[in-house]
């Protein structure tokens, strides 16, 4: 029972964190959003004159690095409340890029109230969500990047251990990724010590795991008894090192690093769980003798990877 309470508390803390960070993530004024392939939506915040708003000539839109080359606006439509305008373009927009929409001499209630520019890009929440899905499913570390296999094969024999390992791993993963990010962003990058990444990251992971191990042993012996075995194994899991390295390589920010690590951890947990279910079933299968054990586990993993190809190219936003 106590173990459940622990995870519930952890989940609650995470949700709380999201609430605190939520306002920061909400779209700030002066931004627009992509609608469909060829549409951008901007909101003026106040009602504007329809004759002004629907004239494409009043807008100039460009991709951020190309301010000299304007996008051709085909038409503009205004919502019934006259607050939100939808710009339709001739060409398909690149949703991974940033666009600037400049609205010239905005007319509201017959008066010109000046010009405004809007930044249009994928919202932070969307980016984070994509990151999460990406790390957990689309580019699952086990099935598409082949990492963490040793632990994956070692701990997936029983469902219960798989779940324990998955949860422990996810928590350790997220926390150590955050620490690695901080160290990378505040120490390694400013002082040009990038070449120390490997040694520093593995050091952090090892020390952190050791610390958790010691603390858990003292603070919550029950939890330690349940999860202690996995802690030792975590240090030898490639993913725990690969995620901070990936984070550093892709210049992820703090929140992005956190979500990415969470996705990777969840993805690993999912992989472990699915594999454990199948392996429990394999226990009673008439697998040819030469294939029993690891060979069949590899082949099953291959089939998992085949199924997970279905997620490739998935782009929710």
């Amino acid at each position, binding site marked *: 029972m106590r173990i459940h309470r622990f995870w519930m508390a952890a989940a609650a803390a995470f949700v709380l964190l999201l609430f605190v960070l939520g306002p920061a993530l909400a779209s700030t004024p002066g931004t627009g959003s992509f609608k469909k392939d060829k549409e951008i939506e901007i909101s003026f915040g106040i009602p504007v004159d329809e004759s002004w708003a629907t004239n494409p000539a009043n807008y100039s839109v460009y991709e*951020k*690095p*190309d*301010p*000299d*080359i304007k996008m051709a606006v085909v038409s503009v439509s205004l919502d019934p409340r006259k607050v939100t305008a939808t710009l339709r373009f001739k060409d*398909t927009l*690149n949703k*991974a890029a940033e666009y600037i929409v400049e609205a010239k001499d905005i007319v509201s209630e017959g008066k010109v109230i000046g010009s405004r520019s809007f930044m249009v890009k994928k919202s932070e929440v969307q980016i984070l969500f994509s990151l999460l899905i990406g790390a957990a499913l689309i580019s699952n570390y086990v099935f598409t990047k082949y990492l963490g296999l040793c632990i994956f094969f070692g701990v997936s024999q029983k469902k219960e251990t798989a779940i324990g390992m998955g949860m422990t791993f996810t928590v350790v993963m997220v926390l150590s990724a955050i620490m690695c990010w901080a160290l990378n962003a505040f120490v390694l990058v400013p002082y040009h010590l990038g*070449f*120390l990444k490997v*040694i520093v990251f593995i050091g952090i992971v090892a020390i952190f795991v050791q610390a958790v191990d010691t603390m858990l042993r003292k603070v919550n012996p029950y939890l330690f008894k349940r999860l202690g075995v996995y802690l030792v194994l975590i240090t030898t899991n490639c993913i725990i090192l690969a995620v901070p390295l990936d984070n550093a390589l892709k210049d992820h920010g703090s929140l992005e690093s956190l979500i990415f690590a969470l996705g990777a951890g969840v993805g690993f947990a999912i992989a472990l769980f699915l594999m454990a279910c199948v392996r429990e079933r394999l226990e009673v299968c008439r697998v040819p003798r030469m294939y029993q054990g690891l060979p069949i586990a590899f082949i099953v993993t291959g089939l998992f990877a085949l199924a997970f190809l279905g997620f*490739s*190219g998935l*782009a929710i936003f």
Partner: protein
Amino acid sequence: MKEILKITASLTGVCVAAALLLGAVFAKTEHARKASEERIKQETVQDLLGFGAGNIPADLKIYKIHRYVVKETDGKVLLGYVVPLKEKGFGLVEVDLSGKAVKTIPIQAEAAQLADKSGTDAVLKQALPKGTEATYAETLYVADRGGKRLGYVVPGVTQGFKNFVRLMVSLNPEFVVTGVAITESEEDPGLGDKIKDDFFKNQFVGKTLDLLKELKVVKEPLPGDYLPALDPAVAKKDRLSPEKISEIRAKHVKDDIYAITGATISSRALTTGVQETVRKFVYRLGILDAALKQENVAAAF
């Protein structure tokens, strides 16, 4: 206590030894690594211009033009081109969005400092007045041989089937495409990935600016006689002479782009990418040349 001291001492020892070793290796390799990265980039550009390894004339010079988006303190947005000058040094030529030259800021720096983005960023930070933001956009290459422009290599980006496709297009002075290279892509292996193959990307070679504007992608199969002229490996097998190759290519030069079977989206993406890249470049080069003339800047190329 003594044991702890001993442990600490040995750990410290290991750390110090490791740090020294790593520091030394880093110092030795960092320069070499950067140089080799630069070399790879250089080789791509040379390849596109038609100069393979061991075939580089001594008087070939490849100049880099870094394009920046400059935001002045009053919020005005300008385009800035870092161009090498005929004499020593560099200049930042600034033009406004309508294409009028604004000013030229001389920059004193070594060529090595301006080799890449991070170096140039640092130099510009020094050279520009405080509060002015300069954001790196791209690097264009101009090849020069004996004071004559030989061609251009332009980077571009397009939305592929799954993710970005980064490409480079080389043009001759008349803006006829001479080569296309894919530098980064995540297309499906066996399908969209084939945009990297010679038989596809060489279809762009020889397309003039006018042809390019009207270029479409057709879902017809590639004509049988066209393939050997596009793919050097096939040409070699068929023992096609260079004259024959150019003859066949000339015959098909007005053809549209034949889509890769099963990867129409990727084919179309690359086509659009090449069109857009060339269109933007030609427009900008005209402005830049005019600005250089107006500002009386003697550029190296």
